[in-house]
């Protein structure tokens, strides 16, 4: 008999959900939440026999005895260190998924831009929130869990043509608690026609602990809207992040999605992009640097539904010690999506014989007027590069560190926010072997 593809959810997780579900606000959402909850119970937790979870090992993660979060506010210093987006940036701060109003600042926004916590949105516009929850395409178990139990998050709306000069940063702080906690923040962003937004998303940790952040972000771009979304996952230690981002682009809309994952016990970044109108563009860049026993999954799905769109994926990883990294990227060009340009690159540096890299770059093409390509590599450092640096007097360790840094730095060069990029570069130096010994002056600009 074949092994099951999904496992029954751990009873502690189920009990926690059953207890929370009836207490969540917003009657209009009750029906949507119940359906999602039942779907979650019926499906269960995916095992590696489910194709999209082939390289993920999450049994131990999910078997933790989760409790509901109780943390109220992180230390001011934690938030300050995470700040990015320039001095005038507006900010929503979350402690274990809950909005911390006292540390958030979203005043003085231009007319036509509304930013609020999801709890507030549920209170004031429950129907719209329900409709947004319902609209999430092809939900999986984690998305269903989020839909069922999302209590807070961010609700962001820009009217047509609104182009704020300041960026907006979401800071998710994983605050260590005595027991493991699971949180389900939900982010909804709607950009009207021609609107523009620079959205930063930082995940940081405070104190030891096991916080699993099960995040769902729904980003909707109307015609000619433009969004820069940059995520830094820096909540290291025992914390975990399962983040699914779904982006819908109308005609002429543009997306730049950058993600850097420094660490975390288990991190899964799912990005699903739907190019639904002609002339859309999606540029996606990612970097992951797991070490120790960390695991990072990257799952990218780009759907070209309409013609004349352009998409480009550029993902790199440096994997050390006993860490595992998996990259699964897929370009789907649907029937009729003629005149498509779609590219994908995945490059991995494997630094240890105990580490593992799995890559699955896929093309799925149902139209013929296309220019599509992908490339994937896994290997160690290039000997030619090492030799070159050493003939100039650099020692082997320094040369290796510098080449590793440079390998990762190529992704950071595509980040838009200078402060966030600096944080990533510092993270690289802290993580790559010998990086701490490199002269940061001139590298972390």
């Amino acid at each position, binding site marked *: 008999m074949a092994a099951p593809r999904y496992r029954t959810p751990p009873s502690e997780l189920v009990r926690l959900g059953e207890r929370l579900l009836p207490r969540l606000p917003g009657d209009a959402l009750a029906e949507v939440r119940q359906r999602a909850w039942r779907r979650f119970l019926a499906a269960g937790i995916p095992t590696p026999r489910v194709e999209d979870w082939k390289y993920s090992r999450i049994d131990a993660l999910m078997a933790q005895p989760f409790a509901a979060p109780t943390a109220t506010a992180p230390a001011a210093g934690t938030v300050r260190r995470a700040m990015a987006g320039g001095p005038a940036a507006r900010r929503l701060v979350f402690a274990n998924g809950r909005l911390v109003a006292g540390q958030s600042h979203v005043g003085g926004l231009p007319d036509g831009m509304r930013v609020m916590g999801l709890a507030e949105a549920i209170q004031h516009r429950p129907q719209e929130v329900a409709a947004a929850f319902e609209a999430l395409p092809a939900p999986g178990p984690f998305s269903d869990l989020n839909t069922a139990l999302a209590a807070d998050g961010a609700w962001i709306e820009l009217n047509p043509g609104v182009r704020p000069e300041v960026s907006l940063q979401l800071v998710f702080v994983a605050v260590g608690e005595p027991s493991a906690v699971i949180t389900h923040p939900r982010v909804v962003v709607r950009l009207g026609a021609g609107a523009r937004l620079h959205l930063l998303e930082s995940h940081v940790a405070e104190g030891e602990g096991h916080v699993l952040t099960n995040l769902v972000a729904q980003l909707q771009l109307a015609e000619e809207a433009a969004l820069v979304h940059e995520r830094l996952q820096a909540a290291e230690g025992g914390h975990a992040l399962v983040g699914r981002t779904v982006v819908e682009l109308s005609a002429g809309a543009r997306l730049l999605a950058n993600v850097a994952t420094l660490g975390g016990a288990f991190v899964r970044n799912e990005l699903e992009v739907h190019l639904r109108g002609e002339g859309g563009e999606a540029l996606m860049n990612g970097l992951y640097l797991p070490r120790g026993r960390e695991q990072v999954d990257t799952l990218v799905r780009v759907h070209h539904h309409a013609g004349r769109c352009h998409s480009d994926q550029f993902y790199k990883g440096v994997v050390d010690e006993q860490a595992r990294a998996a990259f699964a990227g897929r370009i789907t060009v649907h029937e009729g999506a003629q005149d498509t340009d779609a590219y994908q690159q995945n490059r991995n540096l494997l630094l240890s014989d105990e580490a593992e890299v799995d890559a699955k770059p896929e093309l799925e093409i149902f139209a013929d007027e296309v220019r599509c390509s992908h490339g994937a590599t896994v290997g160690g450092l290039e000997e030619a590069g090492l030799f070159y640096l050493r003939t100039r007097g650099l020692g082997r360790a320094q040369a290796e560190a510098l080449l590793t840094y440079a390998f990762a730095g190529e992704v950071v060069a595509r980040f838009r926010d200078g402060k966030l990029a600096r944080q990533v570069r510092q993270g690289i130096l802290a993580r790559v072997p010998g990086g701490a010994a490199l*002269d940061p002056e001139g590298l972390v600009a």
Partner: protein
Amino acid sequence: MAMLDIEGLHVAVGGKEIIRGLDLAVEAGEVHAIMGPNGSGKSTLAHVLAGREDYEVTAGRVRFLGQDLLELEPEERAALGLFLAMQYPVEIPGVSNTYFLRQAVNALRKARGEPEMKPAEFMKRLREAARQVGIREELLRRDLNAGFSGGEKKRNEILQLAMLEPKLAILDETDSGLDIDALKAVAAAVNALRTPERAFLLITHYQRLLNFIVPDRVHVMVDGRIVRSGGKDLALELEERGYEPFLQEAA
């Protein structure tokens, strides 16, 4: 004793013998040119001297400034004063040209027990050297060799030469792929770097580089050996007659 002294050198690459008994001595202040057809082992010699690990020295010895060169790591050779300007310099996106040079200069100083160069002084020297070699300042800020044209890469190698101040500079086919103006500029930069203490080993396929950098000695390398040595006129003879007579001699 000569600055560089090679005796009976044999080198194999992937099990195949490329250098088959080579002798060469270079004195401080001299400029030697090694000429030879493709596949004669010229570039292999350059890389072996710089310390490429996948090239296996099967016999012979090399002394540089009195030390057994073959015992040393590539960075130790650099610290001792050996520099190889490569035919195909490696591109390293993500590390700026300036940052890299500063690391290299300081690594060499550290190995020699000297203090690090102050950033201001480094920048001053770098600008001077860039002017001398004819490198635009913009190129200093760009990533190391990334997206450089062929000529820019070669000039950047000479810039490194100027900054690292080696005792022996090996130029591996620095002339290849250069148009005549770029060639003249590179040659002028090299000539400006000639001192009584510094030796050069020019490795080239063609004679034309030697019109601009006049060598003291010319060696013809065929099939992993030096088959003829002479003064600068030997290069002209080669230009006229080609390598054919030497190939026959070797056979």
